């Protein structure tokens, strides 16, 4: 299942690329570079499509498409920052 996770964006190393920061459940940011077309815009906010792995009451475990600058592949994010891409609902 693909979900979108709220992220911050900055220019990447190339024009077509963006450097994004995804805050994990505890507020630590994971940085990754991605082609701009891959990102999803919804109501003026930018979401990174990620693969759903697991969830509990308040957190969702997601997998990045490749390794973040920190070395992370998977991270727990807050459910508040998650968007279901199929229907655009949180």
């Amino acid at each position, binding site marked *: 299942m693909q979900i979108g996770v709220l992220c911050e964006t900055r220019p990447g190393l190339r024009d077509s690329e963006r450097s994004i920061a995804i805050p994990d459940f505890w507020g630590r940011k994971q940085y990754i570079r991605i082609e701009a077309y891959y990102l999803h815009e919804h109501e003026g906010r930018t979401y990174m499509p990620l693969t759903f792995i697991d969830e509990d009451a308040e957190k969702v475990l997601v997998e990045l498409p490749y*390794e973040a600058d920190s070395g992370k592949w998977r991270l727990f994010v807050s459910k508040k920052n998650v968007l279901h891409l199929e229907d655009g609902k949180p």
Partner: protein
Amino acid sequence: MILSDREGRFALRRGLVQITPEPEDDAWSSTAVDLRLGSILLRWKSIEDIRALGIAARFRPGRPDFDFFQIAQQLTEQITIPEAGYDLESHQFILGWTLETIRLPTLSRLAARVEGKSSLGRLGMGIHVTAPTVHAGFGEAKPEGIPLQLEIWNVGPLPVELLAGMPICQLIFEEVHGTPERGYAGQFRQQGPVGA
């Protein structure tokens, strides 16, 4: 065939593989699990210091009496990574170990490969020198298994800060076709820091 995260965790639960301590949920990727750096490093002495010892400043691995452990004891110094971290200098090569111990019982018919992480590779750092295979039977001699030795190098332009416990490598499990006749009997079957 490479094991997925689901199969890898299943293998852990069934005791087909042992990783101690067991990795957290977020240490897995779809086809690998991250391992962390232990606190002990072995730093090679400088060539000047080696010459001062009156030892021939070259490795001779083709000689029948070549003894890596004796050489490592003579030519390296053990470092415990301080809380502030250890700077791996540009063009430096050191030995380290994973924090986790690994055990791959021969009868499990599983082997593994230890590989670097792209986040560190982008900085110029690698964790093995052409020896990534963890053979079926690795760590079998000890109930808790043994750590993986890492050959850590930095070809990047800047020092890389190493912290004990940081994700340093990834382990990829592979099925072995058939049951090996022999377990792992290589010279590093007891590897680990001295005293570990």
